[in-house]
């Protein structure tokens, strides 16, 4: 880990520590808990997109696998949530290996389509397999999580626990990037042929990353189920997967911190938009939540066209150029004055 990463982790931990005091409102605390789930998934997705250079448009499906495994095993079989979560992780990892084996051996982005197809299949099964998943009406009565006999029954407790897991996930991801595997992955991104000739096992490494990112998504799904206590197929459609890709791409593909801030930013965006709509209403402009999709698409397109490295790095680069320009011009003006 570099100093920058320690600083980042420190900032996140400090922010997490003070946030419930600052927010105070249960509703916004809930919004931040959902943001935590997105941050966790996007950290994993960033490893896959930014470092293994592969895109998954079906990460919502891994979330669904985690959520439904947790829900079914705890409500129908009465298993402990932690065992159920473990089963979800194993299942998601197994599916990731199963999908990664054929697609990662091919050149190009077949994984994108395979994951998109997989996500659609999972959604169809979630709606149609009524006996197991409850169909469109979903599963209710999912138990809350317990930690050493300590029930996570308030939003503040959930907030601290969920963000704790996000910090752990970030630590793991950052450490991974600076390990041998991580350097191998970065080499793959630079040039697959060069990396292969230096002894990086490209296909195996890519599959490992896919599995890890699937595990992140699955855990986030289980946590979702135990927070909302009710699941239905609605939130696991393809659009959610696309939204996750948007979060990572907007924040920055090649930087864990970028993906993290992108996820945080876009998770809070709907709240910002609803604020804005109230503001606009005073000017008699009607804003509907239907426009949200359009705004997500617009942001993604603009970022990809003009700041392909993402907001995080793009803005810092922009600031640097502005500063260097000012120094240059400032210096020039000063000389003129003499």
């Amino acid at each position, binding site marked *: 880990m570099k100093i920058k990463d320690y600083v980042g982790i420190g900032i996140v931990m400090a922010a997490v520590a003070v946030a419930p005091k600052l927010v105070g409102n249960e509703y916004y605390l809930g919004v931040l808990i959902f943001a935590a789930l997105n941050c966790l998934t996007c950290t994993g997705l960033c490893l896959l997109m930014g470092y293994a250079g592969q*895109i998954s*448009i079906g990460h919502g499906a891994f979330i669904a696998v985690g959520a439904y495994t947790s829900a079914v095993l705890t409500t129908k079989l009465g298993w402990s949530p932690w065992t159920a979560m473990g089963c979800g992780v194993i299942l998601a990892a197994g599916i990731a290996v199963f999908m990664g084996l054929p697609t990662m051996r*091919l050149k190009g982005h077949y994984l*994108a389509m395979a994951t998109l*197809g997989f996500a659609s*299949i999972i959604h*169809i*099964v979630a709606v149609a397999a009524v006996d197991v998943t409850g169909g469109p009406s979903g599963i209710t009565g999912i138990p809350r999580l317990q930690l050493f006999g300590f029930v996570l029954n308030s939003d503040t407790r959930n907030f601290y626990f969920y963000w704790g897991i996000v910090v752990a996930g970030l630590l793991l991801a950052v450490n991974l990037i600076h390990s041998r595997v991580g350097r191998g992955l970065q080499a793959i991104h630079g040039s697959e042929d060069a990396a292969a000739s230096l002894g990086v096992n490209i296909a195996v490494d890519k599959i490992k990353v896919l599995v890890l990112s699937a595990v992140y998504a699955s855990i986030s799904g289980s946590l979702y189920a135990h927070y909302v206590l009710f699941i239905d197929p609605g939130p696991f459609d393809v659009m959610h997967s696309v939204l996750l890709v*948007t979060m990572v791409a907007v924040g920055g593909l090649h930087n864990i911190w970028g993906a993290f801030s992108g996820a945080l930013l876009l998770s809070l965006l709907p709240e910002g938009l609803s604020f804005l709509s109230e503001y606009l209403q005073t000017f008699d402009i009607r804003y509907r939540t239907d426009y949200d999709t359009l705004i997500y698409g617009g942001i993604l397109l603009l970022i990809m066209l003009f700041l392909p490295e993402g907001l995080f790095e793009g803005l810092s680069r922009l600031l640097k150029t502005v500063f260097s320009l000012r120094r240059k011009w400032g210096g020039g003006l000063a000389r003129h004055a003499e």
Partner: protein
Amino acid sequence: MTSSSFSDILQFFFMGLQRGCIYALAAMGFNMIYNATGIINFAQGEFVVLGGLMMVTLTMAVKLPIPLAFLSTTVFVTLVGIAMERFTINPVKHPTVLRLIIITIAVSIIIKGLAMCFWGKNSHFMRHFSSTETLDFYGATILPQTLWIIGILLLIVAGYIYFFNYTMTGKCMRACAINRDAARLAGINDRKMVMLSFALSAGIGAIAGIIITPIIQMDYARGALLGIKGFGAAVLGGLGNSMGAIIAGVFIGILEALAAGYISSHYMDAIALIILMLVLFVRPSGIFGSSEAMRLKEF
């Protein structure tokens, strides 16, 4: 086999044929852009939806005669395709495939969002091209619209063969698909070919949407599923191989209808996706592609 079960199979066959033609057309659209740029256009399904919805407006609200509405819709969606290429693909200075793919995803979200704003969330009904009286065929019934769909697919295939084999522009496009650098050295304007491929692909998508809408009733959210089924057909037929894609598309459509009839209509939509996964596992080059060429393919 009794005659009633034979007519059942025939009925499913016809149902599959009409959907299969749409997958075939979507797959052709994928292939055209793939051949010209090496990217998979995730907005392909959105072209189909846009074609269908525009046609609904022009025939049902504006009350244009069908041939005129057909033409204007196709031109409109073709212009959307050209605009997409000009404003989002062409300006990218250092294109990486990942970046271009994400751009097409962004465009698909935007088109979907706009379609939702203009046409709302409910599905739209459109009248058939000719009468809705079914024709009898060995105990099975067939809608005149199905004949229209098959006829238009055949016309497009004929046009496709003529364009790519007997016109200079078509030959230039083929040259670009085989080797872009060599084509550029031979004086072919490859950027123009990319634009043309988006135009053609959007136009074909629009036609697919126009002809299927009387049967399936179009709504704004159908794009993703139509697109991925079309991609399934493209992969099954061998990515980049349009004749293979047509056969594969029709095959997937028929299989889907049989599955809906004999297994469960709930899982009908999963059939094409399972085929897509199986092909990627077993034979990623598709049934008509060579595995040698596959190893070099990149997108």
